[in-house]
């Protein structure tokens, strides 16, 4: 029977192979893409999920965008200018910019888009960045003027965000934002089956010129090892990868290429200074000194990443070695603990989200073993992502392993946590005069060099006060067949350069 059974197995396998050989290849001019996590919605002002942003940035365009060095470059706007007092920001729009319904992009659309973002009824994700806007004027169809209550340098960077995309005023009036995707970007959304696939076709009217491919077909393959398998067999040209364990396997395949880009998001151990004994500066500093950041990175993420201080954007980041206790010092940590009266240590609970990031559980475990050396006993509590988010937002934790999103501008990235009226004060639970002052100064200052000095001081102070223990930034991964040409990996994770990607035969 065993031999018969084997025969049956062989037959089934043969049938599977035979049938799959009949499968025809997709049109060569279409880029076949895969990702594990699908977009969750189409409203560019509300969606903040990574995949949603990656999809929407191919369809919609903001006024300005960031290039691979995080410099601000034209988007829908051709040029822009701050007034001398920093309270007026004027944009000249690209006359070639057109929505996918054929209408030109005008100042009225820009005004309507920002008014939608500012309207509390919308629930727009980026609203908090625009509170300094006093009024929006549209003197002619190609000019928009933002009147500001106070000088606000980071506002320009905030405008590069997909969450600040320009949508047609007519679609806002019709109430169809979120159900119909009409942008001015390189691709049109032809079809979307949530959690299954997206079909994008090239937008012939795109102001950025012709696209390199006829379209993009995105498949949702929830398991990343299946994505790798599909790439091996040439079914998929381009893929987004999350898991460093899978990504590091890509270079083993001769036909495939792995793209790595350091990202702005940071892995961090958040301490809760509202809870004892983390309210003691010495205890927080002890924890910071007891953590071997490189070891966390090496163990949890196979060394795929870079140890970082609070600021992750290359323009502003300091050398991590210059920051407080970035060289592990267990003796100093023990002394700090003793000074604070915790020579025998204490017990605390650390929360982490299951699978988000994929390294969360291992990070928590490495931290657990490192902190055990100074007597801090960690209980790890893994939670489903949504439960974690809810707990995190309430600030209901002793410590939290987190992967927090980064922004190209330090003020936009951190005002939510470290200004006194930041929206996420209840999460950071740490109000500090120096940090608040430095952030306010950085916001008002428009001179890039002076801003660098201000934020370098801010970063040093933050590392020293140790409300959180910043660990590392990882890479954003994309994998591609080697015949895919012209993709530029971005620190924001943006896939915008797919607009110019070509497929070589």
């Amino acid at each position, binding site marked *: 029977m*065993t031999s018969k059974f084997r025969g049956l197995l062989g037959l089934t396998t043969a049938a599977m192979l035979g049938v799959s050989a009949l*499968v025809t290849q997709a049109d060569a001019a279409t880029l076949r893409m*895969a990702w594990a996590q699908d977009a*969750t919605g189409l409203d560019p002002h509300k969606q903040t999920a990574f995949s949603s942003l990656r999809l929407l940035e191919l369809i919609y365009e903001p006024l300005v965008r960031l290039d691979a060095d995080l410099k601000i470059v034209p988007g829908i706007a051709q040029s822009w200018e701050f007034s001398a007092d920093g309270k007026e920001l004027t944009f000249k729009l690209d006359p070639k910019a057109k929505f996918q319904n054929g209408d030109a992009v005008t100042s009225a659309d820009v005004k309507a888009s920002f008014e939608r973002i500012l309207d*509390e009824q919308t629930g727009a994700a980026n609203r908090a960045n625009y509170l300094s806007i006093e009024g929006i004027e549209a003197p002619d169809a190609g000019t928009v003027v933002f009147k500001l209550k106070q000088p606000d340098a980071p506002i320009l960077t905030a405008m590069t965000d997909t969450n600040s995309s320009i949508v047609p005023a007519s679609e806002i009036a019709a109430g169809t934002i979120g159900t119909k995707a009409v942008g001015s970007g390189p691709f049109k959304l032809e079809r979307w089956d*949530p959690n299954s696939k997206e079909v994008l076709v090239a937008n012939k009217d795109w102001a950025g010129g012709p696209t390199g491919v006829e379209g993009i*077909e995105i498949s949702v393959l929830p398991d990343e090892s299946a994505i790798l398998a599909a790439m091996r067999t040439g079914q998929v040209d381009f893929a987004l990868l999350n898991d460093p364990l899978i990504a590091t396997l890509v270079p083993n395949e001769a036909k495939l290429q792995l793209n790595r880009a350091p990202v702005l998001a940071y892995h961090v151990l958040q301490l809760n200074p509202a809870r004892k004994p983390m309210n003691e500066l010495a205890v927080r500093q002890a924890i910071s000194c007891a953590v071997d950041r490189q070891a966390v990175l090496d163990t949890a993420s196979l060394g795929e990443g870079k140890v970082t201080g609070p600021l992750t954007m290359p323009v502003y980041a300091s050398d991590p070695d210059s920051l407080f206790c970035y060289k592990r010092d267990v003796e100093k940590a023990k002394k700090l603990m003793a000074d604070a009266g915790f020579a025998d240590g204490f017990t605390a609970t650390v929360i982490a989200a299951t699978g988000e990031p994929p390294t969360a559980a291992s990070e928590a475990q490495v931290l657990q073993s490192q902190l055990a050396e100074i007597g801090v006993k960690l209980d790890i509590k893994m939670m489903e992502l949504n439960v974690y988010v809810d707990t995190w937002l309430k600030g209901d934790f002793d410590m939290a392993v987190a992967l927090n999103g980064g922004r190209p501008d330090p003020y936009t990235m951190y005002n939510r946590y470290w200004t006194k009226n930041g929206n996420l004060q209840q999460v950071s639970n740490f109000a500090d005069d120096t940090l608040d002052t430095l952030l306010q100064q950085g916001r008002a200052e428009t001179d890039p060099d002076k801003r660098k000095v201000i934020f370098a001081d801010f970063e040093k102070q933050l590392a020293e006060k140790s409300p959180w223990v910043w660990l590392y930034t990882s890479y954003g991964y994309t994998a591609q067949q080697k015949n895919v040409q012209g993709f530029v990996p971005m620190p924001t994770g943006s896939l915008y350069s797919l607009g110019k990607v070509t497929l070589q035969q």
Partner: protein
Amino acid sequence: MNYLIRRLAAFPLVLIGVSVVVFVAIRLVPGDSITAMLGTEAGLLTPQQRQSLATYFGIDQPWIVQYWRWFTGLFSGDLGISVTYGKPVLTVILERFPLTLELALLSMLIALAIGVPAGVYAATRNERPADLGVRIVAMIGQSTPSFVVGLILIYLLSVGFGVLPTMGAFTPLWQDPLQNLSQMILPAFTLGCAFAASVTRVSRSAMLDVLSDDYVRTARAKGVPERKVIWRHALPNALVPVVTLSGIEFGYLLGGAVIVEQIFALPGLGRMVLEAILQRDYALVQGAVLFIAFNFMIVNLLVDLAYAVLDPRIRLEGR
């Protein structure tokens, strides 16, 4: 007939119970549609922003009001609107169901085609090396998780042979049967494998029982050929536990095979429910679970009816 009516009459009661449990359970879990959509960015919302999003998601009313609104909708076949798909819940479910049904049928077919003959074979060679071999294989099959089988299959095919059925872009059966089959065979085989093992074990032991029955001895004594004794006389009776097992398994499979659908990127019911839970798409979770419960009850009923056909000694009407 009475029996059938009594069984059917119990359906609404069970379904109401299920609906209440699901409704409450999914709302007891921390997090809501807003945190699911915005993640930690939800913390940046002003109270008024939050309120208007809650209205949009239909979660601004007290639970009891939400439930009543949803419950009364059921009578007009309205299961609500899925916020992720932007379509009526029933439409979304019915789009996914054919795949799940096909996967269930196909894997059952594979499991029974392997399991029953293997079980009978082992039973007729009781305690001999062949029997032992089958039992060991069955034990391994039963204890290997489907994600291991699935991933190994994918790995072997993609690395060893450099081919893989198209994943992601799923083709329905009626559009292109060959393409569809190429996409279904691996997942169906993965699911079938584990179940074939249980079928083998159950049919083996059932067969052993039956083979020692008097009527089998009588048949043998009358000189009926052994082949006929086994396949015609013994097997139908031995199938009763197999039918029970298959019915339960089939009912489960109609609820979707989450892991296998996940690995092979099949847009079936299981993955849909999982995603709906993760994204807190309340209407979709409620509708889908209700639908799955209904299917499960129908399958159970059919299994009970099948007993009577297989073994005339079983009477459903009671005394």
